[in-house]
C-alpha cells in the first residue's frame, strides 16, 4: 500500500505562511491591499505623530495649506494636518468596521448554524427572527439608533448597532450551507459514532463553512466601514473622533470643495473606495475558489 498522491509539504512554521496566501490572483491582490490598510492602522499613527510630529487634532495657524513638505497632504481650515487625520482615521474606521463585522458575522453564524443543523421548531423560531431583521430597513434604523446615541459610547457604540442589525443576510446563507452539510455522510458518520450535537456543529460542520464565513466577514467589514463613514459624514456619529467619515463631514461643512481644497476630501474618499474595491476582489476570489465552475470559465476564456 502506497500513497497515490504525492505527500504534501508538511505543515511547519516555515510552510504555514505560504498556505495562507491564496492561489487566486484577485484574492491575493485584495488581501494585499487590505494588509496595507491594516499596517497603516497599526503603525501609521505612531509614525505620523511621533516621527513626523504631525497631530490630527492640533489647531495651527497654517490654514488650508496645499500639500507641502511640512504637511504632505496639506491642512484643513482649522490648520490640522490631513495626513495625520487620514492615518488616525484609518485606525478608527478599521477598528469600527472589524468590531461591527465580527459582531454581525458571529451572530449570523450562530443563528444560521443552529437553525440549519437542528431544523424543526428551532429553525422556525430563528428563521422568523432572521426574517424580521431582514425586513427592518437597515440604514434608517441605524440612523435612528445612532441619532439616539448622539455620540455617546463613541464610535464603538455605532459599530455595535451596525453589527446587531446587519447579520440577517449572513444568517440565511449560513443556514442554507448548513442544511446541505447536515445531510452529508460525514455528519451522519459522526452521529453514528456517538458525537454530541454541539461538537458535530463546531468540529464537523463549522470548519466547512469557513469559506462562506470569511467571505461574509470581508463583505460586512466593508459595508460596516461604509455605514459608519456614512453616519459620520451625516454628522450623527461621534464627531469628536477622527475618522474618514468625520473628515468628510468637516470638509463638507467648511465647504472644502468651494475653496478648492481637494487635498482635504479626496484622500478619505480614495481610502474608502480602494478598501471597497479590495473587499470586492477578495469576494470574487473566494467565489472562484469555492465555485469551480467560475474557475473553469476563466481558464477557458484565457486560452
Amino acid at each position, binding site marked *: *500500500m*502506497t*500513497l*497515490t*498522491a504525492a*505527500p*504534501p509539504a*508538511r505543515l511547519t512554521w516555515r510552510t504555514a505562511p505560504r498556505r495562507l496566501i491564496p492561489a487566486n490572483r484577485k484574492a491575493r491582490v485584495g488581501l494585499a491591499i487590505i494588509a496595507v490598510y491594516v499596517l497603516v492602522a497599526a503603525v501609521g499613527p505612531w509614525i505620523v505623530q511621533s516621527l513626523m510630529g504631525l497631530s490630527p487634532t492640533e489647531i495651527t495657524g497654517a490654514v488650508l495649506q496645499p500639500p507641502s513638505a511640512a504637511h504632505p497632504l496639506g491642512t484643513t481650515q482649522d490648520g490640522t494636518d490631513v495626513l495625520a487625520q487620514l492615518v488616525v482615521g484609518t485606525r478608527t474606521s478599521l477598528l469600527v468596521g472589524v468590531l461591527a463585522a465580527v459582531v454581525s458575522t458571529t451572530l449570523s453564524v450562530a443563528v444560521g448554524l443552529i437553525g440549519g443543523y437542528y431544523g424543526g421548531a428551532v429553525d422556525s423560531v430563528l428563521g422568523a427572527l432572521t426574517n424580521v431583521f431582514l425586513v427592518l430597513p437597515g440604514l434608517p434604523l441605524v440612523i435612528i439608533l445612532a441619532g439616539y446615541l448622539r455620540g455617546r459610547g463613541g464610535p464603538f457604540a455605532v459599530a455595535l448597532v451596525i453589527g446587531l442589525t446587519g447579520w440577517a443576510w449572513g444568517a440565511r446563507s449560513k443556514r442554507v450551507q448548513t442544511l446541505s452539510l447536515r445531510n*452529508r*455522510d*460525514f455528519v*451522519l*458518520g*459522526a*452521529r*453514528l*459514532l*456517538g*458525537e*454530541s450535537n454541539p461538537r458535530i456543529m463546531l468540529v*464537523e460542520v463549522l*470548519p*466547512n463553512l469557513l469559506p462562506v464565513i470569511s467571505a461574509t466577514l470581508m463583505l460586512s467589514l466593508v459595508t460596516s466601514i461604509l455605514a459608519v463613514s456614512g453616519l459620520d459624514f451625516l454628522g450623527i456619529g461621534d464627531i469628536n473622533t477622527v475618522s474618514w467619515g468625520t473628515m468628510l463631514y468637516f470638509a463638507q461643512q467648511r465647504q472644502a470643495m468651494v475653496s478648492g481644497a481637494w487635498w482635504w476630501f479626496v484622500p478619505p474618499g480614495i481610502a474608502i473606495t480602494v478598501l471597497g474595491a479590495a473587499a470586492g476582489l477578495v469576494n470574487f476570489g473566494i467565489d472562484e475558489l469555492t465555485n469551480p465552475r467560475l474557475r473553469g470559465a476563466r481558464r477557458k476564456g484565457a486560452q
Partner: protein
Amino acid sequence: MNDEQAPAHTAAEPVPVLEAVDVTVRYPVHRARGESVHALENASLRLIPGRTVALVGESGSGKSTFARTLALAQKPTSGSILLNGKPASAQGRRARRDYARRVQMVLQDPFASLNPLHRVRYLLERPLRLHGSVTGREDLEQRLRALLERVRLTPPERFLDAFPHELSGGQRQRVAIARALAVQPEVLLGDELVSMLDVSIRLEILNLLATLRDEEHLAMLYITHDIAGARYFADEIAVMYAGEIVEYGSAEDVTQTPAHPYTRLLLDSTPDPDRMEFLAGRTNREDGEPDAATDDYGEPPDLVHPPSGCRFHPRCPLARAACRTESPPHVQVTDRHWARCVLLVEPGDGASRDTTTAEVTQ
C-alpha cells in the same frame, strides 16, 4: 415445502446480537395528501456474531433504509430493533453512545463519509477517545498504529497525518472501516461499502472484512446490489424488492436454487460460470426485440403507490392474475430457506404466465 414446516430450528440457532422484528419505515412525502414512501415493509432480520448476512436488491429496494434503521439513524414507523434481546434506543446522548459502542456502520461513499478537513489521526482518535478509554498519549499512539495495521494501511506513519483527499478510494474505505472498528463493536453494518471502489480493490476489502469478522467475531450486515459478491462473502442472503424481503436463505441455497423469480432475474444479470446453462436457457433474444416479460425491462416500482398484491407482479415473468390481488404467501423451501411467492405453493409451468399483466404495465 409449505407453511406448516414452521421454523423449528430457532432453538438450535445461535443467539442473535441484533435483531429487526417486523420493521416498517414510511417517509411522508406529501403531508396534505397523506402520502408516504413505503420504504420498508415488515422486514425482519437476525445478525449473529461471526456471521455475515447480505442484503441484496436493486437501487431503491429499501436496503439502505433498513441499514439506517438498524443503526437507529432512522426511526421505524412500526416494529422494533432488539439489541441482545432488548429494545434498542438512541434517544438522548448516553443511549446513542451506548448503542454506537455496540453497533457501527460503514457508509457507502468513502469520499463523502470522511470529513475532508480532518486528518486520519483525528478521524481515528475520536472513536478511541469516545469509546476506547484511552489512558494517555502513548496508549493512544499505539492504538492508532494498531488500527491502521489491522486494516493493512502500513506503515501507519504515512497515513496518520494524511488528509482524506490524499488517499485513494480503497485507502479511504479502509480508514472508514478502521474508524468503525476502533469502537470495538459487536455489529458492523456495511452499506454498499465496496460499490464505490475500483473492481480490483473490492476483493481486497471483502477479504479484509471477512478476516476481521472472523477475528473479532463480528456480526456483519453487508448491503450490496451484487448478488455474486454476496455469495462469495456472506453466509446468508436476504433478497429485497420494493421494501420487502422476498427471499432468505443460506448464500448457497439462494444463489444455486433461487426460489423467487426476482432472485432469478438478479442472478441472470450476473455472469456466473456455475450457472451458465441457466442463463442460456432463459435469455430470449432471437427476435431482437426486448421482451418485457422474459427480459427485465420493467421500471422500478413506485413506492408511494406500491403495486397491489405481490409487489413484484408488474415485472414478474411468471406473474398470474392472482398475483395482482393476493399478497404472496411465506413459503419455507427448505429448513433455512424461505421465499414469498405463490408459485412455490402452486407451481405452474412458466409458459402459462399471465401475459395480460405484462401488457398492462407497458
